[in-house]
């Protein structure tokens, strides 16, 4: 678990002290009920579709994962080796819960699932990610997405 009190002190200290962006604004976008929302996953796990080029370092751009991609064709290329990968190896929903979203859409709990999902590589510098994230917002809006599930790793 990642309750910091349960981690080795050095690791807990480093994770707690990790430098984070200090934003001066607090944006807030409201929207319709979940049953009318179109949901996309944006992961920071360094995911890619098999055959694509893995994230090679702290690359700040993103990969696209079409909604019809099979679980057998999604790989993980995050640069960190200090997190569990066995969960993802067994079941991609541990990191990329597309099956769960499709079920929720089929039941009408959410409105629909986006045509495309996305992955960054989370160790990239936030200020280098920023232009790619703002460009991605345009892609999401063109796909009529009005709810993004941000999934770290």
């Amino acid at each position, binding site marked *: 678990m*990642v309750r910091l009190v349960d981690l080795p002190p050095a690791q807990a200290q480093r994770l707690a002290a990790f430098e984070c962006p200090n934003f001066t604004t607090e944006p807030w*976008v409201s929207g319709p009920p979940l049953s009318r929302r179109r949901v996309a996953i*944006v992961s920071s796990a360094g995911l890619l579709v098999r055959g694509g080029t893995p994230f090679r370092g702290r690359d700040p751009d993103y990969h696209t994962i079409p909604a019809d991609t099979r679980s*057998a064709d999604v790989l993980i290329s995050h640069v960190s080796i*200090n997190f569990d990968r066995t969960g993802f190896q067994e079941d991609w929903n541990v990191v990329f*819960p597309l099956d*769960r979203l499709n079920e929720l859409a089929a039941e009408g709990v959410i409105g629909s699932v986006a045509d495309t999902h996305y992955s960054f590589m989370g160790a990239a510098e936030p200020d280098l990610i920023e232009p790619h994230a703002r460009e991605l917002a*345009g892609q999401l809006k063109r796909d009529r997405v009005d709810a993004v599930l941000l999934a770290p790793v």
Partner: protein
Amino acid sequence: MSALGHYLEEEGVATVAISLIRPQTEKTRPPRALWVPFALGRPFGPPGDPAFQRRVVLAALRLLEREAGPVIIEDFPDDDPREPADPAWRPPPLPALPADGTPAALAARLETEIPLLAEAHRRWIAEHGRTSVGLSNLPMPELGRYIGDFLCGREPRSRRVGFSPILLLRFAADDLKAYYLEAGAAGLAKPSSKQLGDWLWNSTSAGAALIALRETLLASDNDRTKLIAGNFFVPGLYLPNTARPGTIGANSMGPWQPGQ
């Protein structure tokens, strides 16, 4: 992750983030976040448990219907039921590690050991319909030789266009670990991440070879080789005590520039 939420929301797209490290989320203050008490690498909880995963996904998405923000940070109440060890799990049988730990012996042993797990790995794929092996595009027997060459002080040519030999080595190491962890988990038992990690790093030639490879390449004159060796082969938890840095964590890596 929280920074992504900030940028997307500023552009008019509503977001909710899963938080794995609460203090970081408290600092970044994304519009909405659900902290989950799961291991790094498992943002939606246990594998093979759709009902549990669904509860996590829904708990997060429901925050989008709240009016009381920004900022909303809530806690998911339940631990990952797959985190404890499974006492019924037994690793695939492998010969005991040899006393001869020279690079040449380790390389030879690795090449011999990989095929011994082939049947277990095929069973894994049949059971789960997928494999995470595939970043390097190297077939498994050749992958072992590629790693073994580096271990013995040789630098083989890269087999993948656009990838330097050392970059391909990083992805070959990722593939090797994935192959072993998947083969080790084949079958009905549900080993924990720690059980599998302990087995890989303490009882297999792959673990011994990667630990030795790290030490060999850290002695290189090439800073990039040292950077990859030091950060991308052996998790901090399994470094020999003499090599363990003062801090470990998901983001513990040296300077690294995009495009390398």
